[in-house]
C-alpha cells in the first residue's frame, strides 16, 4: 500500500519534470516529428484492421439481435454509428494502442535507462525526462484523436460491408447513420481519446523511465506499462462518461 502511494508520488514528480520548457525548440520539433511518425503514422494500419472488423461485427450482431419486423431497419446503422463513436473506437482502440505504443515507449525508455543513455543525457546537462517524454505525450495527444476519427469512419465502412453480407439494406444503413446525429458525441469521443493518449504515454514512460536492473526488468516494465495503462483507461472511461454524458 505504502509502496503504491510512493509510486504515485514518483509519477507526479516525473510529470513535473516533463512539463518544462524545452532547452532548444529546433531539437524539440525534430523529436516531435520523429514521435509523430513512430506513435501516430505507424499505428494507422493496426487501427484500420481493427476498426473494419469491429464495425462489421457490431453491425452483424445488431442485425441478429433486433431482427424484428416492428423495429425499423435504419436502427442497425444508427446503433453501429453511436456504438463506434461513443465506445468501440475510443476505448477499444485506446486499449490496443496501450499495448502497441505503451509497450514500445516503456521498452525504449527502459533500455535507454539500463544502458545508461538517460544518465548520459543528464550528465550533458539536459532534462532527460522532458527531452524524451514530452514529445511522446504531445505527439500522442495530437495524433490519437486523428486515429480515432479514422477508426470511426473505417468502422462504419466495415459495418456497411458486414451489413451487406447479412442482408441489411444499404439505404437503411445510411439512413441510420444520418439519424439523430449529435456532434457532441464526437467531441466527447475526442476528449476521451486525448485523455487516454496522456494516460498511455505518461504511464508507460513512467514505468520505462524508472526501470532498474537489466533486460528482464525492461520486460517487466513493459508488461506493467500495458497492464496499468489499460486499467487506468478503463477507470477514466467510466469517470469521463459519467462526467461528460450524464
Amino acid at each position, binding site marked *: 500500500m505504502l509502496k503504491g502511494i510512493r509510486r504515485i508520488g514518483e509519477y507526479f514528480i516525473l510529470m513535473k519534470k516533463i512539463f518544462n520548457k524545452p532547452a532548444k525548440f*529546433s*531539437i524539440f520539433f525534430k523529436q516531435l516529428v520523429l514521435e509523430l511518425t513512430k506513435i501516430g503514422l505507424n499505428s494507422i494500419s493496426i487501427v484500420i484492421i481493427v476498426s473494419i472488423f469491429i464495425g462489421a461485427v457490431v453491425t452483424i450482431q445488431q442485425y441478429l439481435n433486433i431482427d424484428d419486423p416492428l423495429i425499423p431497419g435504419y436502427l442497425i446503422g444508427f446503433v453501429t454509428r453511436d456504438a463506434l463513436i461513443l465506445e468501440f473506437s475510443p476505448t477499444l482502440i485506446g486499449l490496443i494502442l496501450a499495448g502497441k505504443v505503451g509497450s514500445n515507449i516503456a521498452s525504449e525508455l527502459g533500455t535507454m535507462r539500463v*544502458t*545508461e543513455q538517460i*544518465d*548520459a543525457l543528464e*550528465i*550533458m*546537462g*539536459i532534462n532527460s525526462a522532458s527531452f524524451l517524454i514530452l514529445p511522446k505525450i504531445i505527439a500522442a495527444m495530437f495524433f490519437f484523436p486523428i486515429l480515432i476519427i479514422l477508426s470511426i469512419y473505417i468502422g462504419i465502412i466495415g459495418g456497411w460491408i458486414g451489413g451487406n453480407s447479412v442482408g441489411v439494406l444499404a439505404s437503411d444503413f445510411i439512413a441510420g447513420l444520418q439519424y439523430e446525429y449529435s456532434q457532441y458525441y464526437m467531441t466527447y469521443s475526442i476528449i476521451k481519446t486525448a485523455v487516454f493518449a496522456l494516460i498511455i504515454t505518461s504511464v508507460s514512460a513512467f514505468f520505462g523511465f524508472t526501470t532498474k536492473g537489466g533486460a528482464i526488468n525492461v520486460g517487466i516494465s513493459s508488461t506493467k506499462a500495458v497492464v496499468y495503462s489499460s486499467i487506468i483507461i478503463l477507470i477514466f472511461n467510466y469517470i469521463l462518461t459519467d462526467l461528460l454524458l450524464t
Partner: protein
Amino acid sequence: MIEVKNINKSFGNNYVLKNVSHKFLRGETNLIMGESGSGKTTLLKVMIGLYGLDSGRINYDNREFSNMNIREKRLVRQEIGMLFQGGALFDYMTVEENIMFPLNMFKQNSHEENLERVNFCLKRVNLENTNNLLPSELSGGMTKRVAIARAISMKPKYLFCDEPNSGLDPKTSIVIDNLIQEITQEYNITTIINTHDMNSVMEIGQNIAFIHNGVIWWHGNQEELTKTNNKELNEFVFASNLFKRIRHQ
C-alpha cells in the same frame, strides 16, 4: 580540481561511502580503484550528481556542487564529459549525430562549424570516416572511442570515465588508456577514472586512490603503490600471479 569532503552515502541500511575525502587534480589522470562493490561507482555517481548525498561537500574548482539546485547543476554538467562503461551512445543516432548532439543542444554554431568539430573529435580518436555508422555497427573499442569523442566535443573541464576498459582486449585497453591520458594532458582537464584493471593503473595512474569498504583506504602514485605495505591494498594489487612475480623482481 575537484574536491570531495566527508562524503557519506547509504542505500537504506547499507552504508556505501563512509566519510570519503579526496582531491582530484587538474591535468592528471586521477584513478579510483577498488574491488567490485567497494563503492567506487557510487562515488563517481555522487560526484556528478546522479545520486544524492547523505552528507558532505563536493567542490568543482571551488564551486560547491553539492549545494546547487538542479538548474545550477545542469550548467556545471555542461563542463563535464563522461565515458560510461558501455559507451551509452544513443542507439538511434549515427556516430556523427551522437557527437554533434551536445553541440546542437548547447552551442549556437552553424551546422558546418559543428560538423568540423565532430570530424576533429573523430580524428582525435582515430575514427575518421565513421560518421554514418550506427552504434550497433561498432566494435567495443570503437564504441568507447566514439564515446570519448562525444565526451570531448564540448571541450570539457572535467572528464569522468567509468571502467573504460571493461569488455575490451588488452591491446585495445591500452589504446583507450593512452587516449584518455593524452586528452587529459592536451586539454589540461581533471580526469577521474574508475577502474579495477591493474594494467590501467600501472599504465596511466598518476593520482591513485584505493577505495575499500566505502573508505579511501590509501592514496598515492604508481611508485608508492608498488612499495606500500598496506595489507588490503597489496591483496588487491597483487592478486594475480603476474603482479606477484613483478613485485618479487
